[in-house]
């Protein structure tokens, strides 16, 4: 066979797969994809990109999502769910703030549920409705089902909250390539994963939540160093500040929801206009129908909201402190969330970090864009090796083959999640079982690799050697969990095992430690013996010395000198590092002191018994 020269790292041309990134937000959600190497946010049929994260349940089981549902927020609060993200993976006990919410909570172990017109629903179900709506949008825009999605979650989400998010996706019929931290997604959207290594801050002020994350980029992989924030601070509070000002200016205190809503909406529009213009007019319709026109300058707005802006800086400080860093350590600052359009926020962030923040991308879209880039990568639409954002497999995962050799199934540095399969066969006539030995490492001999797991595939129908077809699949999910399955293709018998190969190995340092432990196994054993012998000998020295201090009179000078010599010899041996010498000398001392110990025993019994009457000794 003749070969041609290939480009470095070139692989078989991948077939392009549809993939999407989803920002499942507390207030709004978005979906994005990569088109012609550009990440773009997908619009709904009316050209809107933001989908309000609001779900309304009707008595007839109908479910409304997004803008339509949002209209009912105040009219039908019990069946209209906003900010359901706050309840994901949370039990009633975890939610001290739930008392303010209008929902009818049902306390369920693990996660709360809500009672609605349409029966009880869980936060996972509510979230899945949002995801379904985004999925439909993606199917429309992509012209087919996405093969997988990346969904973003806050960096502080714990395992239960992450699992709940995955469950919601599954319920919505979405395959999750992986969950991605929101700040990491934002950093990816700005291409920081290809920027200089260092520490970056992501300042995320959304509609109702504030998060600050400190990320460290090393070798293309982001690590979250610290997070902080305020779960009840967001752009809505700025609307509220303007709303309060309007009430103060007009002396009009609306009582019905219609007026409250229109006044809040006027406040929001004024806020948004002030991000573009130095001042704006506000029209307020009073309850008698008359209209008052006011003017609000950016300066006055800044004064009104100064306290709110300051409130975001405290968590930033805390996060920096938790990460053990100072402002000078921060290489760049990313702004996320619509509220960061406000000039007062940008100014405050620039002042605090002593550098202008990154603002080129739409702060509403940046997280979804990053998720889309990630999804595109995971779908295999890009040569992955030049982009190392993902976790990689630190050591190859292999299988033991005949002769004790390791056949690598998944190569080192493969990005996860990953799945590879290979077929094996029987080597003896009538062989009905096959032993699968999963190993990790780069060496060729299994004995020089690390053993991860062993299991047996039984029940293979008897066939001639080489006829059975056993497909062994190695799959590593985004969390580094390896599952190995072996299935005989003809009979369908199957066996599987799960292991966590990354345990203690995700870090290069730890991997090196393990390698060292192999290389120095013999030395370790010697060191252990030495320590054990030393401890034993020191105990013996101490016992002998304290006995001599009490009862040296039981020995004649020769014996005393003899014992002293042995004692000295052992002390010298202890100072050395030959465990065998210590053992030998300790044995000598033991021997030399046997006579002494015997006399001490006799002597102490004699002392105890002298002058005692027999009946007094009865116990």
């Amino acid at each position, binding site marked *: 066979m*003749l*070969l041609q*020269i290939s480009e*470095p790292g070139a692989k078989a041309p991948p077939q392009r797969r549809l993939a999407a990134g989803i920002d499942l937000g507390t207030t709004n959600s978005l979906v994005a994809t990569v088109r012609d190497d550009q990440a773009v946010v997908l619009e709904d049929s009316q050209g809107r990109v933001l989908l309000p994260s609001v779900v309304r349940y009707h008595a007839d089981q109908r479910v409304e999502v997004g803008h339509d549902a949002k209209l009912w927020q105040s009219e039908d609060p019990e069946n209209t769910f906003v900010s359901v993200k706050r309840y994901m993976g949370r039990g009633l006990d975890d939610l001290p703030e739930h008392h303010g919410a209008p929902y009818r909570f049902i306390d369920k172990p693990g996660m709360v549920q809500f009672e609605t017109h349409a029966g009880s629903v869980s936060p996972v179900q509510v979230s899945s409705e949002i995801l379904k709506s985004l999925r439909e949008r993606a199917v429309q825009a992509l012209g087919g089902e996405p093969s997988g999605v990346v969904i973003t979650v806050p960096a502080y989400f714990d395992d239960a909250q992450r699992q709940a998010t995955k469950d919601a996706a599954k319920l919505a019929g979405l395959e999750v390539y992986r969950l991605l931290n929101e700040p990491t997604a934002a950093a990816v959207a700005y291409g920081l994963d290809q920027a200089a290594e260092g520490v970056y801050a992501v300042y995320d002020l959304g509609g109702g939540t504030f998060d600050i994350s400190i990320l460290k980029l090393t070798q293309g992989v982001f690590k979250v160093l610290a997070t902080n924030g305020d779960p009840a601070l967001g752009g809505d509070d700025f609307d509220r500040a303007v709303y309060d000002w309007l009430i103060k200016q007009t002396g009009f205190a609306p009582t019905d929801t219609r007026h409250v809503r229109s006044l809040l909406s006027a406040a929001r529009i004024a806020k948004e206009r002030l991000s573009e213009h130095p001042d704006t007019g506000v029209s307020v319709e009073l309850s008698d129908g008359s209209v008052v026109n006011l003017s609000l300058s950016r300066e006055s707005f800044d004064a009104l909201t100064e306290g709110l802006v300051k409130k975001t800086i405290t968590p930033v400080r805390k996060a920096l402190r938790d990460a053990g860093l100072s402002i000078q350590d921060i290489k760049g600052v990313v702004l996320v969330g619509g509220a960061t359009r406000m000039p007062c926020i940008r100014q405050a962030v620039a002042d605090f970090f002593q550098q202008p923040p990154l603002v080129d991308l739409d702060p509403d879209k940046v997280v979804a864009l990053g998720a889309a880039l990630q999804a595109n990568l995971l779908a295999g639409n890009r040569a992955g090796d030049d982009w190392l954002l993902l976790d990689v497999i630190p050591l190859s995962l292999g299988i033991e083959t005949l002769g004790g050799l390791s056949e690598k199934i998944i190569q080192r540095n493969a990005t996860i999640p990953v799945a590879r399969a290979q077929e094996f066969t029987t080597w003896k006539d009538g062989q009905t079982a096959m032993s699968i030995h999963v190993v990790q490492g780069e060496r060729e001999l299994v004995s020089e690799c690390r053993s991860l797991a062993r299991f047996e595939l039984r029940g293979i129908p008897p066939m001639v050697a080489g006829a059975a077809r056993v497909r062994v699949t190695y799959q590593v999910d985004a969390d580094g969990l390896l599952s190995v399955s072996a299935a005989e293709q003809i009979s369908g018998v199957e066996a599987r095992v799960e292991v966590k190969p990354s345990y203690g190995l995700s870090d290069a340092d730890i991997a090196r430690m393990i390698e060292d432990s192999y290389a120095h196994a013999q030395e370790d054993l010697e060191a252990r013996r030495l320590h054990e012998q030393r401890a034993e000998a020191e105990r013996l020295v101490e016992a002998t010395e304290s006995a001599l201090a009490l009862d040296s009179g039981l020995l004649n000078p020769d014996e005393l000198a003899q014992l002293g010599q042995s004692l000295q010899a052992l002390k010298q041996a202890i100072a050395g590092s030959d465990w065998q010498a210590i053992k030998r000398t300790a044995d000598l001392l033991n021997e030399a002191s046997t006579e002494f110990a015997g006399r001490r025993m006799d002597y102490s019994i004699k002392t105890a018994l002298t002058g005692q009457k027999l009946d007094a000794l009865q116990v």
Partner: protein
Amino acid sequence: MAITLTEKAAYQVQKHLTARGRGLGLRLAVKTSGCSGLAYTLEFVDESAQEDLAFDSFGVTVLVDPKSLAYLDGTELDFVREGLNEGFKFNNPNVKNQCGCGESFTV
């Protein structure tokens, strides 16, 4: 310990490198795959790795990683014409068996 190119192969590699406009040389490696165990890979090199071993043949730099070298030592890379096909051919003294198509081999 050596890997060599025939003059014809070196000329072809040089021609490809010039046409490509960049590249340090040629990388030879083996990977486990194919029907008989190991298979060759042949790539341009844009970046050399620290552990790479370099050989020079008719002005062309050939890089091999130490692990692959164990299987490739003594190999001569030739450029041949077989019927209508032209391409590179590994003359590897370590090979004990080859699969029918010659894609993979065992040592």
